[in-house]
């Protein structure tokens, strides 16, 4: 009981810090420059360092919470744990890319967008790029994974059990993106029920993706496979979708109905629920 109340206290501190560190700069930038200028515009490179810090807010929050509550770092999941886990590393990279490929094939066949004529060389160029860009850009998603899968999910699991942790963790993760979603991130701004439906969809997709990322973390006892999978989803799969349909990587140019349909292949991640439920051992570093 004492452990549970300590975990609840830690979760509250962690959430306040994660949301505060990310939301303050996002709201300031949205107000001062506008979302399209700082996040997706031509000059967004100048703002990437802010994106890196705010995107890494869950990691900063984890470190600060551990310091404030004197928790220590014994279970921080920072070891690579490559030995015996190479297949999970490969899986973390390839599954999101395959799902990206399925999403782009759906989009190409459903006349959602322009179908660019690509030479064989250029297709190979983009596919190759998706393969190395995903692990390379994992430094950008590491901050989120270190916080969500490395700290929040195990704490929620200890307090409320695994099913509740997967659901609550995903919803929290989706809500954390809200300042970006309300400005058009992922779903644009032109859809019925804007922006609430977008936030709801974001929470839904985060719950689903969280299942796969948590399974990877639980299997390997390391945070890096989940970081690679997250990056493969954000960078690699987005790049693949961009290759086959003439749209921006983050789907801003696709109609809302297309975005909904393109989320469907991600339901494949639900297959990891039985695997997670079968093996109930807690995440261990």
């Amino acid at each position, binding site marked *: 009981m004492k452990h549970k109340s300590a975990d609840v206290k830690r979760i509250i501190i962690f959430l306040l810090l994660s949301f505060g560190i990310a939301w303050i700069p996002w709201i300031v930038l949205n107000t001062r420059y506008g979302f399209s200028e700082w996040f997706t515009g031509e*000059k967004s*490179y100048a703002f990437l360092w802010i994106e890196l810090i705010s995107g890494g807010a869950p990691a900063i929050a984890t470190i600060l919470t551990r310091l404030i509550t004197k928790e220590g770092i014994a279970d921080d999941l920072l070891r*690579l744990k490559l030995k015996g886990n190479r297949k999970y590393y490969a899986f973390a990279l390839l599954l999101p890319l395959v799902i990206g490929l399925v999403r782009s094939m759906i989009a190409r066949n459903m006349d959602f967008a322009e179908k660019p004529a690509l*030479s064989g060389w250029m297709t190979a*160029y983009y596919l*190759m790029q998706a393969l190395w860009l995903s692990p*390379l850009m994992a*430094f950008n998603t590491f901050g989120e994974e270190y916080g969500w899968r490395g700290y929040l999910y195990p704490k929620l699991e200890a307090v409320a059990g695994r099913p509740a942790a997967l659901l609550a963790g995903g919803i929290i993760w989706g809500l954390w993106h809200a300042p970006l979603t309300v400005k058009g991130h992922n779903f644009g701004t032109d859809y019925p029920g804007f922006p609430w439906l977008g936030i709801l969809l974001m929470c839904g997709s985060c719950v689903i993706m969280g299942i796969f990322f948590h399974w990877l973390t639980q299997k390997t006892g390391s945070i890096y496979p989940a970081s690679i999978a997250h990056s493969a989803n954000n960078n690699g799969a987005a790049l693949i979708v961009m290759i086959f349909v003439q749209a921006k990587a983050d789907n801003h140019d696709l109609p809302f109905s297309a975005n909904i349909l393109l989320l469907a292949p991600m339901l494949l991640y639900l297959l990891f629920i039985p695997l997670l439920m079968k093996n109930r051992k807690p995440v261990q570093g």
Partner: protein
Amino acid sequence: MQGTVYKELVQNRFFVLFGLFLPPLVYIAVILLELIVRAGEAGLSWKQFFSEFLADGTLFPNKILILLIAYIGMRLLSASVFSADESKCKCFLMASVPEGTARQMYGKYVILFMTYALFFVSAFFTDSVLSYIVFSLTGEAPPSMLGLFALMLFLQLFLRSIDIPFMVSYGTKNGKYVFMIVLIAAMLAFAILILYSPSSENLIRIVADVILKLLNGELADETAFCISAFPIVSIAAYLVSYRISCKLWLKGAVNYEA
């Protein structure tokens, strides 16, 4: 038990910190260099300074030149990762534990990769901060260097995958000579290129233009593919190099001092 990666991390903490802090220092050097060049123009505001810096196109070539020097510095320091354990006793002790050879090499390869990756992240972060400063002052942002940093990271991994087996089998002293030979050959090739280039004065500008084309995606399809395949090739080379080093390490250790 903490493992060999932890041991390498503690042993090579200064090298790791060097990888982290070198990019900001390099950027400060670029700005100081430009300040010295433009020192004659009294009363120049920061806005004018950065506007001119952007307008005459010296920012990009300067950054490339000084980053290249930084990478050479990184290479010279990376030898210290291996020289720290160049003792016959240490090597045989390590080899006596289960999978000792593989674990020793694993620790070193991981720490080298980690430091180069840290250098990449730090360089990207610093460059983005500089872009933000320039954008805030002038309303213009320099082009993204992310692609170039990535290419440099994989080029470094490729080069290390060649010279590490030499360092492991001949020791870092002799390994350095191998690197020096390669460096001298490269400098000779560069000198010949400058001597016979039709526009030798603008050579760095020409190289920068090719890189800009690459960053803007204006290269021919085949060339673009070859460049995009290079990171995969360099990672494969790094893994093969690890395997070769595992095989050569104990043979090389025989020649180390006690």
